[in-house]
């Protein structure tokens, strides 16, 4: 037997062993089993609803079973998402098998589609009467206009506002037109990340285990999009349209990816780093005796909730360390923090220092922040990673506001383009020397413009 075949076998054996060790079998089995029950029972109830009146005794057992299965599943997962796409049904991202009746999945999908819906979220357990109402509404005649909205309102009227209906879903493809519209345009991608981040925060807020997979996919797309684009600038521009909760999280992720790429981390590691950055502050979503977790304990609170995830994975180990150590100084007596923690620390502090807060403005102007951070290399921050960050952002990072020698005021709109133009990024003119706004959008290259004489800290 040739050596290469034997090596191949060994390598695949390792791959399989590793994959098995990373699997959270307990959770998966629960979702498969209970999720399957919920979907099968809902399907059966919808069929019966076309044959029997809702108060028919034939409903009693399946309604009770559905109620019990849903309650257990919510105990395990928190909100339960039942999504139909093409001929498949997913419960919280796990596909449900239909081994005996292939058409069953299509049946549920068809019922939901009558209401222009592709899925349902159960945020809370339902009691028997609520299950009957739900089935009756789903099997009933859809609204003539905006059927999904109509269904949602009818559900609210029946006291079922915890049940949410979703639009139809389809698979989004790499290379397809819509993908190009989202992924190639980093800003759009950045905006679209808000929802999965919100889901994660909400899950954590309810003390439930967040699923890192949707976040990972989102980060992967950010990495792909970031290959050819200046994500520091795009992120800063895009975040103005983001809801506040996700601005910091996404910016820290984007900045961490910038440092990671400068550090020549491979894409797989960048993905782990990005996911870790997405989760770095989840501890704030938890409550302690009804109150928000204070700064001093948010790292430990985040760690505690993420420890619920089962299965070994290097990303998990690094994520846990990042959550716990991302405020820790390089010279901390407990030891040097882990690599991803050191990266996220720089990204996090930079964003905290430069983040605009309503009524207060940022703590420091971006050029000031980076200069003060530069003085802390080897103490607060890893000097190598900090230098990589400086090399990428420059002395006038994106978002810096500066006055040029000729009196014009500009906002920096690019990160460092080359070592030669390190301190000369692109900028947009926002005020002319007389204080008036420019008549047209004017972008200038500071390499060919009068020198910067002053930087400004945005007012509150």
């Amino acid at each position, binding site marked *: 037997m040739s050596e290469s075949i*034997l090596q*191949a*076998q*060994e390598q*695949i054996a390792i791959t*399989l062993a*590793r*994959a*098995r*060790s*990373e699997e959270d079998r307990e959770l998966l089995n629960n979702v498969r089993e209970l999720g399957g029950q919920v979907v099968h029972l809902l399907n059966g109830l919808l069929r019966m609803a076309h044959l029997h009146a809702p108060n028919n005794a034939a409903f009693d057992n399946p309604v009770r079973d559905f109620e019990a299965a849903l309650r257990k599943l919510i105990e395990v997962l928190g909100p339960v998402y039942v*999504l139909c*796409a093409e001929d498949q049904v997913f419960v919280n991202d*796990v596909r449900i098998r239909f081994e005996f009746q292939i058409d069953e999945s299509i049946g549920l999908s068809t019922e939901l589609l009558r209401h222009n819906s592709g899925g349902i979220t159960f945020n809370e357990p339902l009691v028997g009467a609520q299950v009957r109402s739900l089935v009756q509404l789903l099997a009933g005649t859809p609204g003539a206009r905006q059927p999904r909205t109509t269904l949602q309102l009818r559900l*609210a009227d029946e006291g079922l506002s915890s049940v*949410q209906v979703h*639009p139809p879903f389809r*698979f989004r493809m*790499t290379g397809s037109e819509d993908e190009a519209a989202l992924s190639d345009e980093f800003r759009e991608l950045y905006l679209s990340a808000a*929802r999965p981040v*919100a*889901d994660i925060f*909400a899950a954590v807020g309810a003390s439930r285990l967040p699923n890192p*997979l*949707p976040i*990972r*996919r989102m980060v992967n797309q950010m990495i792909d999009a970031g290959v050819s684009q200046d994500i520091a600038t795009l992120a800063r521009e895009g975040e103005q349209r983001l*809801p506040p*909760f996700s601005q*910091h999280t996404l910016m820290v992720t984007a900045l961490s990816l910038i440092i990671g790429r400068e*550090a*020549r*981390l491979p894409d*797989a590691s960048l*993905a782990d780093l990005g996911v870790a950055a997405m989760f770095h502050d989840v501890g*704030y979503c938890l409550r302690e005796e009804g109150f928000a977790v204070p700064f001093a304990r948010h790292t*430990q*609170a985040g760690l505690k909730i993420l420890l619920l*995830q*089962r*299965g*070994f*994975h*290097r990303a998990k*180990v690094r994520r846990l*360390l990042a959550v716990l150590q991302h405020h820790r100084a390089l010279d901390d007596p407990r030891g040097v923090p882990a*690599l991803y923690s050191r990266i996220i620390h720089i990204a996090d*502090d930079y964003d*905290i220092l430069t983040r605009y807060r309503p009524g207060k403005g940022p703590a420091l102007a971006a050029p000031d*922040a980076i200069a*003060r951070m*530069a*003085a802390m290399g080897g103490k*607060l921050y890893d000097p*190598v990673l900090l*230098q*990589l960050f*400086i*090399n990428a952002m420059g002395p006038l990072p994106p978002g810096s506001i500066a006055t040029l020698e000729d009196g014009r005021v500009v906002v920096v709109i690019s990160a*460092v383009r080359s070592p030669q133009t390190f301190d000369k990024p692109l900028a947009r003119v926002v005020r002319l020397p007389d204080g008036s706004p420019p008549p047209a959008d004017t972008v200038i290259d500071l390499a060919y413009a009068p020198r910067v004489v002053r930087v400004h800290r945005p007012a509150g």
Partner: protein
Amino acid sequence: MAEPTTLPGQGPEPDAGGSGAASAAGEAAQAPDRSAPTPVKAAGKAVRALTHAASSFLLYDATNEAVAGFISDLRESLDQFLTAFGRLELEIRPWDMTFAGQVVYLDRDRERSMAFRLYKDGVRKLVIHPEVTWEEIIELLGILAVRARGIRQHEDDVVTMLWNASFKHIETEVVEGLVAEDDERVAEVVHETDAAVAPRSALQAMVFNAPYLFDYPVPPVGDRGPVAYRPLPEASFERIRRQDGPEGLPLECAQLTAELLALLNDEFDPLSADDVVPLLREVRAYLLGNGLLRPFAQILRLVGEKAPPDETLRGQLLAAVADGEVLRRLLDLAGERRELSIEELGEIAGLVPGDHVPIILDFLATHPDGPGRQLGILLLEQEARTRPERISQRLLANREAADLELLRMLERVNQPAAEAAALDLLAARAPAVQIAALAVLARTPYSAKIGRALVGALRSSAEEVRRKALDALVAQKERRAYDTLVEQFKTMAAGAMSLGEAGAIGEAMARLEPERARKQLSEWVRPPGLLGRLASVPLPLRWGAVAGLVVLGGDDARELIEWLAGKSSGDLQQLCRAGLQALAVREGRQQR
């Protein structure tokens, strides 16, 4: 990394300008040889080989020979296709895979079909380019095997595994996720927001509307420092690479373990065993699964040193890192890997809490050889010193197949226990067991009990046992065995016995009772009286006599042997001459 290896026999792509398959199909049509495979047939063969190889992991262990056969077929068929027809572009559909619009793989069984598994995971197209390397094919096969085995991962699904692989010569078109076709705004049920992204559910809305509170304390930065572009030396990147690479992960596992242990003692909100134990188990499985023994030992020590003093909690933590399974794995690893010495492995195993003895004894029973035994026996030494009962019990449970290394260890560290076991083992029928027991008894301080046992062993049916018993008797200077020995010698000499044993008995007689032996042996050489001289002395007795007299030495012994040399012939005469020579050498040495 080394340059990727190109598949053997792989040629350039047949058409650089267009579709390899289309062009190759054209070439195939013009080719005179009608038996040559068409691109579709060849693609079908390659795809079947790929799916068979991936599915083979369902039936067999990855290292099975059958799997090797499937991988070999895959290499051959893929190589043939890529060499002849260029790139292999497969469309993945729910039930089948197509190449150039034609079905090349079909399986309608949802749970078995590779097409369905890939499809449902979101893979829609798979393209293998002719420049593909063998390493890439194996990585792809590994991913497909994970899927074939039905392993679904929380962290990396197949799509992210394909993405992580960063293939250079394998392209995939995958579903990036589910996207809502949102033609009805959900503004009716959630608050409108000025932000560009509206929440889609009340749950999302709850978070969207949360006030911004993250990380408010301003970092303690002081004065400004210089901000300059500074290229970094390669060594800096190399350090980062090491920390990020596989060698960095075990260190991070240790770091995380230390953090968790510290948080178990947190004053305000300590972690509990439920928080920490599952992760410790996972880390242990990862380290041991990858043979990373040094980091494992480091973590085990950390837990031993830093676990909170509460005994229950401490026990739970230690059990999570190291239990019987770990011990078994260590014993296995002692055989597989030599990066750690047996002593170092012993030190690690010594940190494993709980009762090791039954596990090690079971391991020894199922591993008749290998370095793992050495470790197992080393680990049992402490137990053997203080509480040897269980070891002796196991040793004697099946006397005929007794673990003699255990007996020797017992002798090293606990002689009374070894003596008791050896006495018991003498009752075995297996000569090897009896011999080992006799060896122990030969070195054990003498007692009447031992003497009786040794004499009893002289009646063994196996010559090697009897001879070992002789050695033991001599070593123990058991003079009371002399008469039994002589009687037994006479009986045996009348039948069939080896001359070697006869010589050994003669020597033993001389050593046990020199004076009585001199007389007896002399009589066997030259029987006294007329009748004695007429009677025939059996050869084994004479043989033993010569051997014994050589041991005794002296003029009379020499004279007797000379006499016998003159009267005998063949082997006995040779023995006498050799004996005389030995005596002469000894006497010469004494004179000097």
